[in-house]
């Protein structure tokens, strides 16, 4: 008997009446349905052949065992994925290239730290064509706290398009790719969903799989609707765990997932920490903490990473977007223009 064929049918997520039909037909395990004739199954369950066929297909789909891969195969797949850069070399070095496909990156910080600006920059950068070392796809921005600014997004898209055309002048072989990339093409590849409650975030994540060539998914912010949750603490953990599962499911399709989180007071420490507590801390692969000091200088600190030690990088937010602090344009202040988070 096949390995997973011994799985009881009662553990497969079906409607109660479908469970009753399978029980009536004498089917107890997944293996009982393997190779069974549709007409035989239909007559034992006392239903029509079409309904029996649909039920068998549903069980086969839902009771599929996870595929096995060797670690070597997975490593080869990982090397083929292109990270989404942030246009700030310091932040990209902290993240070893940028927001990585298949992983969940959390960007955490107080008000005005630059979280939304960084997320907007990543959304725009995900559309840069492959020929210019970009991810070359589309991005999704799930706006949970109403922070998405279309004009700012257009401003960043314009800068990225200018950057691509500048690169194309040095690489004539990629002129065709650059010619088809413009501010409008960039904005067309960014899909925005305004989530008015947590259910909206969940629905948006479910629909993200329908976006063609999705390379980046951004949620701003995960804490927006969950911090006001007033139910049982166990129920809150259940909701957070389900959200983490939904995000990791999107990431497993080769999408870079970046979520922003707010800071909350910490009962065990003087410093505020990421909101949503211990249950959420396990959900992200990497955590980037953004700070802005009294003089307006911004910095990003890698607070959690599985591949490198913690580190820090300064950055600025100006009219071009998120950039390295060291590469200041003439005529701007040390922290750029007053683009707020």
């Amino acid at each position, binding site marked *: 008997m096949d*390995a*997973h064929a*011994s*799985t*009881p049918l*009662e*553990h*497969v*997520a079906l409607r109660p009446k479908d*469970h009753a039909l399978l029980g009536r037909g004498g089917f107890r395990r997944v293996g009982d349905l393997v190779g069974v004739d549709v007409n035989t199954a239909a007559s034992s369950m006392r239903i029509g052949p079409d309904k029996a066929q649909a039920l068998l297909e549903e069980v086969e789909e*839902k*009771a*599929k*065992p*996870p*595929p*096995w*891969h*060797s*670690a*070597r195969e*997975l*490593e080869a*797949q*990982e*090397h083929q994925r292109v990270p989404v850069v942030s246009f700030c070399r310091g932040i990209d070095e902290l993240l070893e290239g940028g927001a990585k496909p*298949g*992983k*969940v990156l959390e960007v955490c910080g107080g008000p005005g730290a630059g979280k939304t600006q960084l997320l907007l920059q990543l959304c725009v950068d995900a559309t840069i064509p492959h020929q210019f070392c970009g991810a070359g796809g589309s991005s999704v921005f799930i706006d949970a706290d109403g922070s998405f600014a279309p004009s700012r997004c257009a401003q960043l898209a314009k800068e990225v398009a200018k950057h691509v055309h500048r690169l194309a002048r040095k690489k004539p072989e990629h002129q065709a790719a650059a010619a088809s990339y413009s501010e409008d093409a960039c904005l067309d590849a960014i899909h925005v969903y305004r989530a008015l409650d947590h259910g909206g975030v969940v629905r948006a994540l479910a629909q993200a799989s329908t976006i063609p060539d999705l390379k980046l998914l951004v949620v701003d912010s995960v804490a927006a609707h969950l911090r006001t949750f007033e139910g049982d603490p*166990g129920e809150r*953990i*259940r909701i*957070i*765990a*389900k959200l*983490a*599962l939904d995000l*990791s*499911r999107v*990431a*497993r399709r080769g999408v870079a997932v970046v979520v922003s989180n707010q800071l909350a007071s910490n*009962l*065990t420490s003087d410093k505020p920490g990421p909101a949503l*507590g*211990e*249950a959420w*801390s*396990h959900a992200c*692969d990497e955590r980037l903490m953004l700070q802005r000091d009294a003089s307006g200088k911004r910095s990003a600190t890698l607070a*959690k990473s*599985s*591949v*490198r*030690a*913690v580190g820090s990088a300064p950055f600025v937010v100006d009219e071009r977007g998120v950039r390295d602090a060291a590469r200041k344009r003439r005529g701007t202040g040390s922290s750029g223009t007053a683009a707020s988070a």
Partner: protein
Amino acid sequence: MNGGRLTLAPDETAREYLRRACAAPRSLGIPALGEADRRGEVVELYGPAAAGKTSLLLQICASWCLPDSHGGGCRKVVWLDCDGRLRPSRLRASIYAYAARACERGAQEAAADALQRVQVAYCASSLEFLCALEGISHLEGEAPLILVDSIGGFFWREVKPAEDQCAAPSLFQACVRAVGRLSSRRKAIIVCAKPKFFRANAIGDHREYLPREWTLLVKRRLVLARVSAERLVARFGDPQTDYSGSFSFGVGADGCCAFGDVR
């Protein structure tokens, strides 16, 4: 079922088979836990985020899948990734670092060879996790080392089971029973990472949230905590009695290092 009996692997010579069959049972590769035979044990690694749970799982994996020449047991490992966060490049880096510490020469080749002995399944739901466990129980030959990262999330994702006795058994309970069968009948060693969800009274305290069936299965628990940016500590012991042992270690890009006593 074959229980713990070894069988000849494909393309394996008689000399290699005898060497493997006569080899001492593998320890977990963590110095402080010693060389005791852990067959049939369920070991839990408990701690908050960034406490070193996955790093220790990688250390244990490397100690099992590397060949004898590089300090390993040349045995199969099964990694059940329930959180979708296993990074293959990190796995290779940890295995290579372990091999290089044992013997620098040929470490790259040994690591590449070891990766072939690691099988990974991504489990997105309790049902996939259960199917994967059932699949392992039907494997021929010696039961592999089973690493689960992590066990806690599925419990919270499952719809709250009904209280009345007529309801279908909880899927998570079925998974726990499958783990129990693997440990008792196949003598498999199962090491599970369990995230800490509730704030405890002191650093290193354990607060159980999984059903009692799981608590009774666990024979050894390591409670992990981060004490500084470079050091982590682990208290370990029998969960039914006390946590009498402890050790400290560091975690870097190449995995765990600098195992030592707690100062």
